[in-house]
Structure formats: C-alpha cells, structure tokens
C-alpha cells in the first residue's frame, strides 16, 4: 500500500507540473457564450469578452486574440488574461485589425 501511495503522489506531482506547463504555454481556448454586441472598440476601454476565444502569445510584445473567428493583434501590455473568471480583458486596441465580423462583447468598463 505504501508503494502505491508514493506512486500516486509522484503521478500527482508530475501531472500537476505538466498542467502548469500547459497553463503557461501560449495557446488557450475558452468556449463561452455571448449576450450582447458592439461594432467597434475604443482606446482605454476595459473589455470583458465572452465567446470562443483563442489566445496566442506570438512574441514578447504582441498577442493574437481570436474571438468567434475574429482576429486581433494586441500588444501584450494591453492584455490581461484572466482565466479564473473565464475572461480576456483588453485595455484598448492599438494597431488592432479585425475583419467585418461583429465582435460580441458582454461588458465594457472604462479603465
């Protein structure tokens, strides 16, 4: 029994370290629903987005965020990535580009 307990502990430790690596890896996909929508984004707006979100840290300075097939290039300094409450928060968009699709946003708070 002692050996099995130690083995279980070892697997838990190694598995948790694996999950930690998965957490700090650049790509995360969250699926959540949307309630309301706006058509444009403004600087200095804190945006809490709900939708199918894909987040990719491309370099130390930029990230690409894809929300419901809608792509944005965002400086890392503007992105707060909080998965605790399942949200991506962006403080304004600089050099952002997006296609014609409507971005669905549930809550906007001025910074």
């Amino acid at each position, binding site marked *: 029994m002692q050996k*099995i307990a130690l083995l279980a*502990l070892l697997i838990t430790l190694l598995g*948790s370290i694996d*999950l930690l690596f998965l*957490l700090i890896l650049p790509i995360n996909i969250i699926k959540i629903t949307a309630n309301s929508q706006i058509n444009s984004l403004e600087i200095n707006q804190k945006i809490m987005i709900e939708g199918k979100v894909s987040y990719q840290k491309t370099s130390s300075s930029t990230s690409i965020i894809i929300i419901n097939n809608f792509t944005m290039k965002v400086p890392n300094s503007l992105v707060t990535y909080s998965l605790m409450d399942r949200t991506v928060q962006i403080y304004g968009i600089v050099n952002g580009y997006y296609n014609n699709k409507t971005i669905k946003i549930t809550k906007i708070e001025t910074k």
Partner: protein
Amino acid sequence: MILEIILALAIGIACGTFTGLMPGIHINLIAAFLLSSLGYFSSIPLISLAIFIVAMSITHVFIDFIPSIYLGAPDDENFLSILPGHKMLKQGKAHEAFVFTLYGGLTAIPIILIFTPVFIWFLPGLFAIIKSIMPFLLIFISLYLILREENTLNAVIVFFLAGFLGYLTFNLPIKQPLMPLLSGLFGLSSLFISLKQKPKINKQKIISLKEIKLPKKDLIKSTLSAAISSPLCSFLPGIGSGHAAVLASEISNKNENKNPKSFLFMLGIINTVVMSLSFVTAYAIQKTRTGSAVAVRTLLKQISFNNLLIILAVIIVACIAAFFLGIYLSKLTSRFINKINYTYLTIIIITIILMFNMVFSNFFGFIVLLIASCLGLFTILSNSRRINMMGSLILPSIAYYLLN
C-alpha cells in the same frame, strides 16, 4: 401555469433521482446543459425552469447517499458518508444507514424555514463585514482542518496539492472543470480502492421505519450541531457540506467512528440545509455558492421575494417526495445489491465516469481526472482525511480574494 409548475417539479424530481443514483453525474452538469440550451426552452417560463433546478438539486442530495453507502462512490458533498455507510453495509445495515440520512433530510426542513428569515435580515450586513476578511477566514478554516489531523505533514501535502490542482483546473481551458476535478478526487479514487479490496457484500436487512430510530439525546444533539454548522458553511466560498459535517461532529462530539448512525443523520441534515440555503444566500447577498444556485440566478436574473417563496415551497415538496422515493429505491437496492458482482459493478461505474468525463469535458479535463484520482488515492492510502482535498476549491478562492 400551475400545470407547468407541477410538471417542472415532477421532471426535476425525476432528474434528481437519476443524477443521485448515477455516481459521477452531478446536478451541475444538467444545470449547465440546461443553461447552454436555453434557446430550446424559450416557450417555458423561466420560473418553471428554476423550479426544475431546485427540485432536481434537493432530490439529488437525498438520493446520492445510495451510491455513496451501497457502492462507496460518493461525490464532493457526501464523501464523509463512505466510512460509516460502508461499515453498516458490511453489517447488512445499508438500508438503515440510508434511512438515517433521509431522516436528516426531513429534519432539515424546519431548520431551513428558521434560517431563511435570519439570512434575509442579517446576512447582507454580516457578509459585508466578512467579505473584507474572507481570505483570512478561509486560511483560518484551512489551518484548523490541517492542524487537527494526526499526520499534519500528509494533510499539508494533500491540501496544497489539491489547491494547486484546483487552481490549474480553473485556469486551464477545461470544459466543466468541476466534473473531472471532483469525480477524480472523491469518486474514482474510492472506486479504485474498493476494486482492490474486493469487498463481499452481505445480504442486506430491510427493517421497518418504526425500528429505525436514534436515541432522543443523540437526535437533539445531532440536530442542534447540524443547525449551527450548516448555515455557517452555506455562504462562504469553497466551504460546504464536508466542512459543516466536521464542525458539527466537533460540536456534538459524534464522529463517524463513535456513532455512525448519528453522523449519517447529521450529514443528511447538513447536505439539505447547505443546498437549500444556497438559494436563500443567492437572494439575500446575490452570491452563489452551489452550481444550482448559479443556474437559478442566471435564469431569473434577480431572485425576487415571490420567487424565493416558490423556491421554498418547492424545497419542502421535493424533500417529502425524495424521502419516499429514497425509501423505495433503497429497499430495491438492498434486495439486489448482494446478487450483483461488486467488482463488475465497480468497473461499470468507473467506465461510466470515464465516459461522461470524455463526453462532457475535454482532453485537459481527462488529464485533470487522472491526476485528481491519483491524489485521491494518495489521500486515502496515507490515511489523510478527504476533507483536505477541499483545498482544491478553498485555495483558488483564497488566491482570488487576495489577488483581486
């Protein structure tokens, strides 16, 4: 409208019976499914859907003692019932053990009715004070639980590993994160152990309700301790039935080893009170502490006083219905349990849990399930209390309050 309400109540009780009987199928799963497919139910009044959720949740907390006692397959709310339940199962008294939890569930009704106005009047003020000290209160509760263990080192390891795993689970893109986490920590691990031990189930005795009773002194002491502990644990994040049970057994000095019958009775009260008061908490302070309360609040947006009255009525009806349903199902299980091959049954349940996790969660969720099962195994084999695994919910809550 009345017909819709009755129908919602009946379907809720039926679904609660199903989720209660199936280990690894949590009410949160059904609630999440309902919320994600609300479009299909647009013609149904939202209050009827809320009634469905409440009736399902209450029935679930009554019925889910059946897999816990008869199969040793608990969920996060009733894992403490395994030891006393299993002890009585070996003596052929599983039906009696289950009936004590049902008695507890019924005894919860007056406690809920007494604490509802107390919560409505005093909780907003009390919570405003507690909120500022919430992380420290949670740290204090965690330290208390760890330090009362015989082997503190093991308790610390389990608590922090569970907390770390919980934090990772909530921060990774996992569908239905609670499902793999809790079914691994509390469900699969115990099933693996019972698979290894291969217990032989004796013929179960079915005795009449008249013969199943607690001594008056035990009844009063257990009721009072549960009435003190469960409301306290109904509005704090990460703190739930398990903690209320530990607190109640400290107050009454009746633990699962000393007096399993009183302990099971106490668990029955606590689970029903904690679940029911979570709806009252959602009304009083707009905070949700159970998945069901989240679902009800999401459906109704703002729970009005009239809504609360309907919810209370549904709780009472569901308690009574679940009591009689529980007796019938327990008698049925008692008759057939010793004819079933326990090893095969355990393997089937493990397969069901794995399948549900694969279908309703995702790849990351499956990894969490495996790691959580290993941690659960370590906890059981190192004789640490399973309550320490609630660190998986408490530590992320502490981190949330400290970091925000």
